């Protein structure tokens, strides 16, 4: 409440003297140009206008990110504690375009002069009338065509409209607008610089700039962490500090050569692994790129560098493990080969002499003895099959042939010729898509086809086997599928059947040692492919396998 002011409901005409108005305009124009910030310019404007008019209350609104007006908290008050409720309400509200007096100015860009707000209760804040305010003037702060904010002035007296003052105030709005615009641009620049500097600085990559004399001019946090130096320690020091001794000769030449080349940036290390040198003398491997920039006629080189010690170590470990694995595989294959070869020797003795016993003494042996010998012979035969298969399995890896272009149509033909008897006896029909030529081990692919087709014929149901081999190019590999109408496999065994000596059926039902698919898998894997089966009992099986289209000899 401002009772002394409230006594006189009609204020005097503010001024009619253009000189004073021009003075006011000058004050604000100068202040606007000198203002360090938009806030300062707004405050100056409010103060100057109130000083000129004697109005007790002024306030600045600015458009926020949501397009509505929000209080800036910038006020001119006749007394520090004046109009508390109006200020409190103002701080709380936001005006969308068209809402309230400020919102109307925001929407129209045209000043409002309400001579007596007591007649416009619908438009003004309730607290304004509660605190005895009588007149209100609002004008836009313009940035170009856009209204960036609204300045409002209130009086506890009825104020007759003053067109001259209104004209000046519009002009002030434009002056202040320029400051707001400049401040906005500066803020945007500051934010962008801060953002950029922040990104550069917190980057875990080391970023190091040098001038033309190879002295360090920029050293970010990533560089501090990577090299162990603080920026302070290295700024203005020669770049050589960060380069291992053995890489120093020629480094400056290479930078110079890059400086004179046409490219603005390039990856470093095309001649070999880039290395950095830490403060403690440790040399580390790095990925790096270098760029150049001309600023004010001077060339700046900036290297972005990443410590790849972990990656290099991981690669080394991986390579070592691969080597060890290859060696242990080779040893295992050699072991299997030697073991199975040497196992055959005593077995041959058992087999031969058991047969000799049976032959020479048949008439002198009773039924029991003959049965026992029968089991012994059977056991020996099985053992021989197992050893022969083990040998064949070990040979897939250790005795594989060279990779050459192999025409698969021919391979299929030979496999079918080898299976002629089984195919004829079962009445099987084997068909195939046109087959490609691939780089492979010819003998092993023959074995693969023969094993798979042999299985399709062997594990047949009641119907005559129908087998089809399809081939399809998918990306960098050939995909083959061999479908049959045989007995099928429970899905739970789909993995197990590829394991050596795993069998799903009794020997009397379907003879065999359980090596065929294990060999198939080893052959396919040696060719950089995969093999798997899709099947259900009674619904046939489809064996899928892939072969890489480009494959170096393994």
């Amino acid at each position, binding site marked *: 409440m401002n009772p002394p002011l409230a006594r006189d409901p009609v204020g005097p005409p503010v001024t009619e003297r253009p000189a004073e108005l021009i003075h006011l305009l000058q004050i604000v124009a100068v202040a606007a140009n000198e203002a360090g910030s938009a806030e300062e310019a707004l405050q100056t404007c409010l103060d100057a206008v109130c000083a000129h008019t004697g109005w007790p209350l002024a306030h600045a609104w600015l458009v926020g990110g949501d397009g509505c007006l929000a209080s800036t908290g910038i006020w001119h008050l006749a007394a520090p504690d004046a109009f508390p409720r109006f200020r409190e309400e103002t701080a709380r509200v936001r005006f969308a375009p068209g809402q309230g007096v400020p919102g109307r100015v925001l929407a129209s860009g045209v000043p409002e002069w309400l001579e007596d707000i007591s007649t416009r209760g619908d438009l003004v804040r309730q607290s304004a009338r509660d605190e005895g305010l009588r007149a209100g003037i609002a004008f836009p702060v313009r940035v170009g065509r856009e209204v960036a904010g609204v300045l409002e002035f209130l009086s506890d007296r009825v104020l007759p409209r003053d067109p001259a003052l209104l004209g000046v105030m519009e002009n002030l709005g434009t002056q202040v607008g320029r400051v707001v615009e400049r401040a906005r641009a500066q803020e945007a620049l500051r934010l962008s610089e801060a953002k950029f500097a922040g990104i550069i600085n917190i980057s875990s990559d080391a970023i190091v700039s040098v001038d033309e004399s190879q002295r360090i001019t920029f050293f970010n946090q990533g560089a501090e962490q990577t090299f162990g130096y603080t920026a302070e320690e290295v700024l203005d020091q020669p770049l050589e500090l960060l380069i291992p001794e053995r890489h120093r000769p020629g480094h400056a030449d290479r930078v110079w050569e890059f400086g004179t080349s046409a490219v603005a940036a390039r990856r470093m290390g095309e001649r070999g692994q880039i290395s950095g040198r830490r403060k403690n003398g440790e040399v580390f491997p790095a990925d790096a790129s270098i760029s150049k920039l001309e600023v004010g006629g001077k060339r700046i080189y900036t290297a972005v560098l990443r410590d790849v010690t972990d990656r290099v170590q991981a690669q080394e470990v991986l390579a070592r493990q691969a080597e060890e694995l290859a060696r242990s595989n080779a040893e295992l294959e050699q072991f299997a080969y030697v073991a199975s*070869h040497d196992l*055959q*020797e005593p*077995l*041959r*003795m058992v*087999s*031969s*002499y058991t*047969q*000799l016993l049976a*032959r020479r003494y048949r008439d002198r042996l009773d039924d029991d003895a003959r049965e026992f010998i029968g089991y012994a012979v059977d056991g*020996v035969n099985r053992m*021989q099959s197992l050893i022969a298969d083990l040998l064949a399995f070990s040979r897939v890896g250790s005795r594989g042939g060279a990779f050459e272009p192999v025409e698969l149509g021919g391979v299929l033909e030979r496999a079918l010729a080898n299976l002629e008897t089984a195919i004829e006896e079962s009445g099987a029909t084997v068909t195939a898509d046109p087959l490609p030529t691939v780089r492979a081990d010819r003998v092993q692919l023959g074995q693969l086809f023969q094993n798979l087709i042999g299985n399709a014929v062997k594990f047949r149901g009641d119907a005559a086997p129908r087998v089809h081999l399809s081939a399809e190019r998918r990306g960098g590999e050939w995909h083959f599928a061999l479908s049959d109408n045989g007995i099928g496999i429970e899905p739970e065994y789909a993995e197990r059947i590829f394991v050596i000596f795993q069998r799903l059926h009794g020997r009397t039902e379907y003879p065999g040692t359980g090596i065929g698919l294990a060999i198939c898998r080893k052959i396919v894997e040696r060719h950089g492919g995969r093999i798997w089966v899709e099947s259900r009992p009674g619904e046939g099986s489809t064996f899928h396998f892939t072969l890489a289209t480009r494959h170096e000899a393994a």
Partner: protein
Amino acid sequence: MSAPARPMEILLVEDNPGDVRLTREALKDGEVASRLSVAPDGVEALRFLRREGPYAGTPRPDVVLLDLNLPRKDGWEVLEEVRRDPALREIPVVVLTSSDAERDVAAAYALQASRYFTKPADLDQFVAVVRWVEAFWRGTLGPESGG
């Protein structure tokens, strides 16, 4: 069949008594008329062939059955020396070994082995091998037969 009446003189170079006996039994079962001498290693085999020391009075074998894995001097060395020795190089040498590695087969023929057999586990096949040897020696070999 105009077979020579005398039995075939065989030198078996073999260190495994089981295989020696098996060879004898196969010759018996195959009714191959033969006299079998045995050298347990390569050194003895070459002394036998050259009729050195205790072998001074022995007959020159019609055929050598040669195992490759032997103590002291292995079958490869024996084969090589026999083929290099003008006095011995005409003697047929049949390799009879446990290895079925292609590499070994090729190497043996490169050293002019007369024939390469992998020792069969089946007795009948063993008999077939010794019968082939007999036919080979008697020059009555029919179309490709034996192991």
